[in-house]
Each structure stands twice: as structure tokens, then as C-alpha cells.
């Protein structure tokens, strides 16, 4: 580093004074220097060293301590505010979670036969063995199903004919995860209620439809049989 007064390459030769002074600062052995000059530097050093400390105004410390008190108080308030903000944020997050939380819909398929005053009901949970009910022409079939991924309810007759769909048919009500299909049995046969979780257009027969649904990766609940006489 070039010092003020140095030549650009820093090679300015030192005179006797400079050599002596530099050695003194470094604590190195002192080169020769005249007694008068040594005395002059020692006097000068003492002058600099004994420069009186410039005292601050008498009130300066009190002013500083008052400023520290204010700073400390502000810091405590800030810390308290931070706790309040943190608590408010946690409460807001909890409210948001509660508001946004939707319990997974209960999943069921209820197949109900309404016959005059008599009511027969079969309720099957997915994965359980299928149900089998008896009905007569003129009875009403009610298929009530709920599932988070419910797309369609269908009723087939004799594994051939698609006789009712929900949504789409007049007897269909509901929406989203909950649909309710109502239809009247107008002919004898073996009816089958099916719950579908993929929207795949029906084909011609039950078997063809099931094959199409299964190839689309649909999950089916098709174990609800009603024999109508």
C-alpha cells in the first residue's frame, strides 16, 4: 500500500530520522540518531500522548442513558407486538384451516325399494359382498350414493340394457359427490345398480360398459342386484 508521501513504487529511501522512527514503532533495534533529535521525538511523543482527553458535556451520559431507556422500552414493545402478531397469525391460520377443511364425504351406496307401504332397503359399503333384493313391477327403485369421486349412477336390466342414468334422467337429483336416482320398475328382469367414478360414455351392454370403464381405470360399485317379477 502506498502511503501518503511515498514515491509511487514505495522505494523512497528513508533518512536517519525515518529509519529510527520506524524501528521505534516496530520495536526493532534502534539505528543511530543524534541525541538532540531523539530528545525532540521523545518530547513530541509525550506531547501527543499527554493530550488532554476532550471531556463530553456533563449531561451526555444521562442523555445516552435516557436514549437507551427509550430504546429498551421500544424494544420491549416491539417484542410484545411481535408476540401479538405471531398469535394473531397462528389464530388466522387456524381459522383458515378450519374454514378450508372439508371432511372427506362419507362414502355409501343405498339401494332402496319402495313398494306401496312397504319399504325394503339394502345398504352396501364398497368392498363388501353385494346385496340382492326382490321387487315387483310397479315398485320404485331409489339409489342414493355418495362418494368424493362419484361421476355417475347407472341401472342396467338383465346385464344388457341401460335403463336409467344419473345425471341425465328426469329421476336424477343431487350433484357433486351426492346423487340420488329414482326410477319405476316397468318390466320384470334382473336389475343392477352401478356406481361409477369415471365419466365414460356408455356403450351397448353392461359387459361392454364395464369393460370400457375398467380399461379407463374406473372404480366400480356394481354389486347391487334387484330381481323384479
Amino acid at each position, binding site marked *: *500500500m502506498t*502511503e*501518503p*508521501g511515498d514515491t509511487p513504487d514505495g522505494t523512497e529511501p528513508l533518512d536517519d*530520522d*525515518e529509519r529510527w*522512527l*520506524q524501528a*521505534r*514503532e*516496530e*520495536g*526493532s*533495534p534502534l539505528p543511530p540518531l543524534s541525541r538532540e533529535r531523539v*530528545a*525532540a*521525538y521523545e*518530547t*513530541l*511523543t509525550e*506531547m*501527543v*500522548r*499527554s*493530550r*488532554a*482527553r*476532550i*471531556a*463530553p*458535556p456533563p449531561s*451526555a*451520559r444521562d*442523555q*445516552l*442513558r435516557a*436514549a*437507551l431507556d427509550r*430504546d*429498551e422500552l421500544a*424494544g420491549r414493545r416491539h417484542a410484545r407486538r411481535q408476540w401479538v402478531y405471531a398469535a394473531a397469525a397462528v389464530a388466522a391460520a387456524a381459522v383458515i384451516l378450519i374454514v378450508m377443511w372439508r371432511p372427506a364425504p362419507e362414502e355409501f351406496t343405498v339401494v332402496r325399494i319402495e313398494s306401496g307401504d312397504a319399504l325394503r332397503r339394502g345398504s352396501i359399503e364398497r368392498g363388501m359382498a353385494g346385496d340382492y333384493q326382490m321387487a315387483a313391477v310397479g315398485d320404485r327403485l331409489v339409489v342414493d350414493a355418495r362418494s368424493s369421486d362419484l361421476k355417475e349412477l347407472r341401472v342396467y336390466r338383465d346385464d344388457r340394457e341401460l335403463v336409467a342414468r344419473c345425471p341425465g334422467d328426469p329421476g336424477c337429483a343431487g350433484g357433486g359427490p351426492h346423487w340420488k336416482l329414482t326410477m319405476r320398475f316397468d318390466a320384470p328382469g334382473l336389475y343392477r345398480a352401478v356406481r361409477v367414478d369415471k365419466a365414460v360414455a356408455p356403450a351397448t351392454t353392461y359387459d361392454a360398459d364395464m369393460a370400457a370403464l375398467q380399461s379407463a381405470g374406473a372404480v366400480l360399485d356394481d354389486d347391487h342386484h334387484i330381481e323384479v317379477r
Partner: protein
Amino acid sequence: MSRSAAARPAAKCGCQKRCIVPSTLPTDERPILELIARRDYRAAIDALIEAYFDQVYDFCVRGLRERVAAQDVTQRVFLEAFRDIARFRGDSSLRTWLFGIADHRWKDERKARERRERRFDPNPIDVVNAVDPSPDPAEETERRRRSSALEDCMQRLHEPIREAIDMHYTQGLSYEDMSEILSVKPGTLQRRVARAWHSLRRCLEMKGISL
């Protein structure tokens, strides 16, 4: 406070072979460090004020040459220290740490003042008045003349040189401490101080001050 060479410990002198002017005896900082360890930061900063307020003010006022600004900067130094003291890791002494803050703050203040294009008070630093008056009027007059000449010559030094001699000989900081504060090698600082003596002697002689 006495600033005799005898009161300065060789351990902090910053030179290995021999110390002409060792640092001033630092305050025993262990009680303050214990307060910090106990997280009693307010008590720690109060202890720092007791130990170093005058010295930091003196350092700032010599740099700024203006008492009101120096008091303001000194206050800012200790407020900043109070806010940061929890993060003090003990890599240096507390005094070195404080002087590091002070060195930045008074230079910031001076730059701000220069930006505002405010003129320095041509004679703001009545250092001579700060010295205890001598009972002998003639002696007092001569002492004031010498002090005034010395301050004038000090101000003629390049700032890095003036700052180095002030930190080492007036504030009693070791070259190692100064190196840490100023980010300049100790050898460079020693060379600056050596040049200062040469310049000061010639300046004083030109003013008719016998040494």
C-alpha cells in the same frame, strides 16, 4: 485518567521485541462479559458506558472536530452496541469492538456532513481548554501555545496518518486492535505513525515550538 507509559500493559502493545508506547491499560472486561453471558445486556451496556464513554467521545470529537456531532455519534455508537451486544462473540475486546463501531460512525457522520456541504468550524475543538489550567499564567500561556500548535499540526497530517497516531498514542489501542478496526496491516500502521512523528516535528519547528 492517567496515561503514563507505566500504566500500559506490554501484553497489548502490538510489538514483539520492545514497546515504546504500549496500549493503555484496558478495563477488566470480564465482569461485562459475564453480564453479557447472563443476557443482562442493559447492565452490560451501562458498564461499557462507565468504562469507555469518555474515550469513545474523545475519539469521535478528534475525528469530527465538532463537539455536538461527536456527542450525537457517541450516543449512536452505544445505542448500536446495545442493539448488537447479544451478538458479540468475543473475537476482540469490547473496547476494540466499540472503537470499530465508533470509527465507522464518525466517518459516516463526516461524509454526511460533507454531503450537506456544511463547513467545518474553523476552530471548533478547544482542546487547549480541555486541559486543566496551570496556576502560572505564563506557563499556561506557553502550554496553550504548544498545544494549539500541536493540534494544528495534527490536523495537517493526512487523515489515515492522523487517525493512526491518534488511535495508538492518544486512545492507547494496540496495532493489532487498530488493524482489526481499520482493516489495515499492523506494519502499515506502524509506518504511518513513524511518518507522523517526522511530519509533526518539522511542522512544530516551523511554528517556532522547541522540542
